[in-house]
């Protein structure tokens, strides 16, 4: 049972790492960023290229990937999403336009990588980043050092993000802009700057998740982010859009459900049973477990 819990925590950390950045852009900018999987894939390719060819250590690869993918996110916001936000008549139109644009950006990024790699998978040998198995409790518990790192990073980032959004001035501005950007502007908040920083954080998270999960998976491929985007939507919806803690709880909940189905149930029904649980959660709490409360003046 201890191993099952460890497996669930490890898988949940993958989902949490992937979902945090997506959740942030969704809640603050109303951007359901389907290009997030492609950004994640770019992060993984940094792990492959820098580790496999330049032999750089993880301490070098991580910041480089985070900054580089964050930059792609800011560039996408400046040249595409910001313009769509400005030109759209209503928030709904803006969200739809950005959603479609993000599909386009994902296709562009994935096609470039697909052509550059001839569609092949590239592999990251365990030895590249010295991935090894750690045994605890007389070998009753096995976990790799990279899975342990992912778990620690996922939990630490969740706490840090939640604290940042709740208690810092910038975090409060983010929450306010998520509700009413126009009023925020009137109160002196530079909304464009705030959105750029949000996109940078979101992109950086995608880069971070890409590096760590690429190493854990041992391979990178141009469409590797796509299945995780679906899982991340589920995680965010379970937790409640806009809730950092919700994304974390949603990620670990989905992971526990999937692991339990594999270990104790019919594994081929893993997705079906897991998503059935999500439907049940939504039927009970349609806005998710930790939905943000919003007030509206009449």
């Amino acid at each position, binding site marked *: 049972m201890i*191993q*099952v819990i*460890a*497996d*669930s925590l*490890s*898988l949940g950390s*993958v989902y949490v790492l992937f979902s945090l950045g997506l959740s942030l852009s969704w809640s603050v900018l109303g951007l359901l960023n389907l290009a997030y999987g492609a950004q994640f894939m770019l992060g993984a390719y940094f792990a492959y290229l820098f580790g496999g060819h330049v032999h750089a250590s993880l301490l070098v690869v991580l910041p480089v990937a985070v900054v580089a993918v964050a930059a792609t996110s800011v560039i996408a916001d400046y040249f595409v999403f910001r313009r769509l936000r400005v030109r759209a008549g209503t928030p709904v139109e803006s969200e739809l336009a950005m959603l479609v644009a993000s599909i386009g950006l994902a296709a562009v990024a994935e096609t470039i990588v697909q052509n550059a790699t001839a569609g092949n*998978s590239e*592999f*990251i*040998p*365990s*030895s590249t980043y010295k991935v090894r*198995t750690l045994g605890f409790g007389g*070998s009753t518990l*096995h*976990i*790799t050092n990279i*899975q342990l790192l992912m778990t620690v990073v996922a939990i630490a980032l969740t706490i840090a993000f939640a604290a940042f959004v709740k208690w810092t001035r910038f975090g409060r501005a983010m929450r306010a802009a998520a509700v009413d950007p126009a009023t925020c502007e009137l109160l002196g908040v530079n909304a464009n700057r705030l959105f750029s920083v949000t996109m940078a954080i979101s992109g950086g998270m995608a880069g971070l998740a890409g590096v760590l*999960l690429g190493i*854990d*998976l*041992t*391979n990178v*491929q141009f469409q590797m982010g*796509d*299945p*995780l985007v679906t*899982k991340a939507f589920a995680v965010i919806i379970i937790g409640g859009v806009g809730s950092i803690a919700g994304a974390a709880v949603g990620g670990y909940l989905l992971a526990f459900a*999937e*692991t339990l189905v*594999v*270990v104790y149930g019919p*594994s*081929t029904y*893993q*997705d079906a049973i897991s998503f059935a649980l999500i439907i049940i959660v939504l039927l009970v709490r349609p806005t998710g477990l930790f939905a943000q409360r919003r007030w509206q003046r009449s």
Partner: protein
Amino acid sequence: MNLAVKAIAASHMLGSTQIQITYKDTQTTQSLAVSEASAAADTNTDAIFGPVLSTEAVAVAPIVESAKIPTIFTQAGGPGVVTPGGYVFRVTAPQSEYQPKMVAYLKSKGVKTVTMLFDATVPTTAGIAQTTLPPLFKTAGITIKGSYGWSEGTSDFASYATKVAAENPDAVGVEGITTEPSPVIIALRNAGYKGIIFGGTSFQAFTLKAAGQQAKGVVWATDFDQNSTFPQTAAFVKAYEAAYGGAAPLDYAAEGYDAVYLLAYGLKDVTGTFSRTALQAGLAEAAKAGFSGALGMDVFVNQDLTETGYLQTYTGSAVETVPSS
């Protein structure tokens, strides 16, 4: 395939006739494969080399049959692709043909129990795990302890490994696509599983490299032995390595090479005025006769390649052929 085209031209096998191949990317999408095949059938294309996925091939096959355009598939090992006497040929023996060799090997190693792990979203891998192997295991007196499928895109195999390690079978079969063997093998070894791990054609030097020493000793059945001393195979390997910077050819390359040669032999056997129908007859004749190719002696039954296959193992850094017992 380009290598075969050049070799055929250099040997003047077809006299002044040149094979020209136009490549179309089906993007592993069934609908795109169908539209590309339909488009090719409507042009002056003489033959098609079909898409490699079974899901695409089963959709393309009826279209090329009704359009009467000779089509040669590689991979696409699922049922319902080749119709005897029709316009479709296949230059990859279905994996079901060389799995008996794998089961015989397991039996020789004293294996009594197995657990199967497989990609449930790919018809070929699911078919081998759920349909092909169980009766072979039963005949060999090997008991299946468990059979567990995952969905394509699964990002963590630890829970599967935990379950298998608890069952502790004598051997574990891993049937997945190319990106899956290494993470599954790593997860199994990390979970403390020490038994035999065996697999299918997704086990290759490049796919196992990621697992490194943890993949040492894994065994798999394949239709291509790059270490073979068969003259045509050795010549192909040498030519391939020379053409592609020393890279070792995979089974996909050998199958593609032989597919082009089947077309060439079919063209040679065309009698009378050239047409697609005449080419189909020529290909049928060439398949019936068989030929020596990169895969070895290519023998066809009902226009489908048949082969008993080879067993290979990974040393942690290279692929070695398991001697036939």
